[in-house]
């Protein structure tokens, strides 16, 4: 069928295409002009396409540009061949060129259709511009928000700080705001990105790292008071820590806010001290009586001995006995004075772990004798044991003395209101036991002083609220007691009670959380 490659390209049997056009000059000119112009144009287009692709490396689907370039170049070549075959009838070669053009066209067409959905999905410049605008607006909003938050962070009077939780569980400082920098004396630039344990003195670092770890363990905000030694000196802080999580839920940062409450603490202590001294004032009569007993014994024995000595009685056995009595009685007085001194001492120390029963016992001992003088019995059932609470023992004792003193006043008042007749007795019950709910200790003080008006009951812990006569009570005792118990994370409540035998009174109940102190905390307490 085919006569081989040579026969295929053999043009000797053909006549030039110009013959078909009868060599009419105007027709020839039109064909030649058009084909040359088309060919040139077709040659320039791929150059332009390739130029674009080479210049714009980011152009999507650049390979289709190459395909287009090849197909159009081939098309251009066919037009030049059309001019060529007007005179030389190399139709075999022209056919090959057309065949190549056909292949390039078909590939390009198929590729274009296959690419169509993806081409359509390409955003238009208008869409791009719109998206760009939206992006710009978004950036502006975020910039303003950032500025606003930066402004909060930089200008708030509250001390703020950010701690980074490292993947290995250690803590590094990110930053702290100017207010906190001023309050602590720490320069943010010197701590940024550095480990807490490297920046702070070891004792302080140990304390704060313990808090950070507690916040991570809690997985939520924690809130505490702490005393820290910082460049500005020893200050007391009320700190709140809030964990910040990443997308996966892991805690990556801690946001902290801290308020310097040193002055407030000092003022509170002053108030507590004042209230304590006021309580001491009310106890003075009882104290005087307590002291008068041993003093009386010393005086009578010593004067008796003196009188015998002057009468010439030098019985050394008797003198020995008298001096032993004198020594014993001074010791007894010493104990009373010690207790007064301990109670009146300013309790500026930190929180510590202690047995609440001991404080209650001390309070009862302080008042029981005086109350007994006035026929008021203090019936104490105090379970001593392993119960340990966290707080200040002297302050708890103060709260108890205050409650006992109030109970006493209520009983005295009730008896005065009962009018004439022999003064009836009074009874105050003090109980210390484990709480009904596990992990709590209960302390209760119950009197038979007639109870409190139910309308007044909700207000008795308010500062300056008093039912006593003017000059008899500051109205601060219970509110300070409330503050002291609150600082121990406990609560104090009051309720009227009916003793069932015609006696009525009030029961104050203090509930304290029992501490399971870690060894480190014990160490810090004793440090």
């Amino acid at each position: 069928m085919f006569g081989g490659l040579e026969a295929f390209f053999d043009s000797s049997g053909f006549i030039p295409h110009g013959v078909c056009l009868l060599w009419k000059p105007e027709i020839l000119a039109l064909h030649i002009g058009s084909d040359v112009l088309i060919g040139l144009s077709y040659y320039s287009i791929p150059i332009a396409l390739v130029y674009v692709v080479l210049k714009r490396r980011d152009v999507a689907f650049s390979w289709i540009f190459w395909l287009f370039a090849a197909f159009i170049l081939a098309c251009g070549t066919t037009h030049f061949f059309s001019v060529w075959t007007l005179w030389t009838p190399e139709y075999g070669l022209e056919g090959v060129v057309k065949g190549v053009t056909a292949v390039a066209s078909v590939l390009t067409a198929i590729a274009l259709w296959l690419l169509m959905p993806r081409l359509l999905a390409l955003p238009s410049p208008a869409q791009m511009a719109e998206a760009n605008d939206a992006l710009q607006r978004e950036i502006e909003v975020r910039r303003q928000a950032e500025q606003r938050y930066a402004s909060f962070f930089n200008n708030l009077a509250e001390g703020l700080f950010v701690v980074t939780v490292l993947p290995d569980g250690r803590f590094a400082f990110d930053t702290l705001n100017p207010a906190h920098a001023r309050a602590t004396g720490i320069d943010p630039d010197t701590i940024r990105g550095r480990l807490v344990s490297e920046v702070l003195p070891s004792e302080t670092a140990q304390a704060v790292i313990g808090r950070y770890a507690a916040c991570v363990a809690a997985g939520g905000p924690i809130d505490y008071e702490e005393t820290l030694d910082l460049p500005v000196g020893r200050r007391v802080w009320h700190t709140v820590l809030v964990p910040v999580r990443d997308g996966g839920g892991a805690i990556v940062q801690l946001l902290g806010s801290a308020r310097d409450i040193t002055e407030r603490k000092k003022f509170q202590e002053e108030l507590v001290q004042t209230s304590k001294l006021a309580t001491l004032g009310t106890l003075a009569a009882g104290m005087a009586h307590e002291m008068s007993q041993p003093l009386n014994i010393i005086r009578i024995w010593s004067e008796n001995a003196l009188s015998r000595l002057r009468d010439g009685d030098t019985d050394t056995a008797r003198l020995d006995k008298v001096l032993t009595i004198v020594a014993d009685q001074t010791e007894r007085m010493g104990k009373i004075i010690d207790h007064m001194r301990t109670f009146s001492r300013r309790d500026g120390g930190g929180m510590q772990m202690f047995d609440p029963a001991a404080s209650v016992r001390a309070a009862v001992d302080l008042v029981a004798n005086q109350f007994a003088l006035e026929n008021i019995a203090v019936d104490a059932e105090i379970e001593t044991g392993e119960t340990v609470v966290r707080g200040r023992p002297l302050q708890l004792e103060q709260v108890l003395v205050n409650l006992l003193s109030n109970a006493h006043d209520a009983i005295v008042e009730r008896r005065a209101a009962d009018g004439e007749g022999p003064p009836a007795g009074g009874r105050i019950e003090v109980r210390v036991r484990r709480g009904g709910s596990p992990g709590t200790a209960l302390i209760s003080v119950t009197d038979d002083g007639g109870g409190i008006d139910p309308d007044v009951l909700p207000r008795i812990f308010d500062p300056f609220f008093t039912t006593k006569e003017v000059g008899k009570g500051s109205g601060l005792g219970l509110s300070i007691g409330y503050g002291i118990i609150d600082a121990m994370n406990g609560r104090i409540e009051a309720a009227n009670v009916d003793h069932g035998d015609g006696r009525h009174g009030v029961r104050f109940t203090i509930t304290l959380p029992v501490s399971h102190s870690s060894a480190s905390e014990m160490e810090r307490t004793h440090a």
Partner: protein
Amino acid sequence: MPEPAHILVAEDEVLAAMAMEDFLQRKGYRVTLAPDGLAALERYRNDPADLVITDLRMPRMDGRALVRELRGLDAALPLLVVTGFLSIEPGQDDLTSPAWKPLEILRKPVSPQVILDTVQRLMATRPAA
């Protein structure tokens, strides 16, 4: 020789009671001790005294109740209250009132000499038996 005057001492502080017993006996008085008001009242009923010295705060029966009981038994009995109390509480029996006489109050700590002087003065209010 006249029979010595009998003094009953109600005092719960044993050492204070013993010391008073000592100097009163040396001055020639016969002394009976009682550790509380109830015991004192019982001893007085069995063996009436010419004068009673009492503390105020005592277990079982306090000094006020004892004074009331004794005054009920003998309106002219000399009474000496020795107490560590600073003041007499309002609403209670006012022992300083003349209604309770013959009665004197001494504050602890008190000198034995002052007790003796007061005892002698109170005794003088009572015609010798």
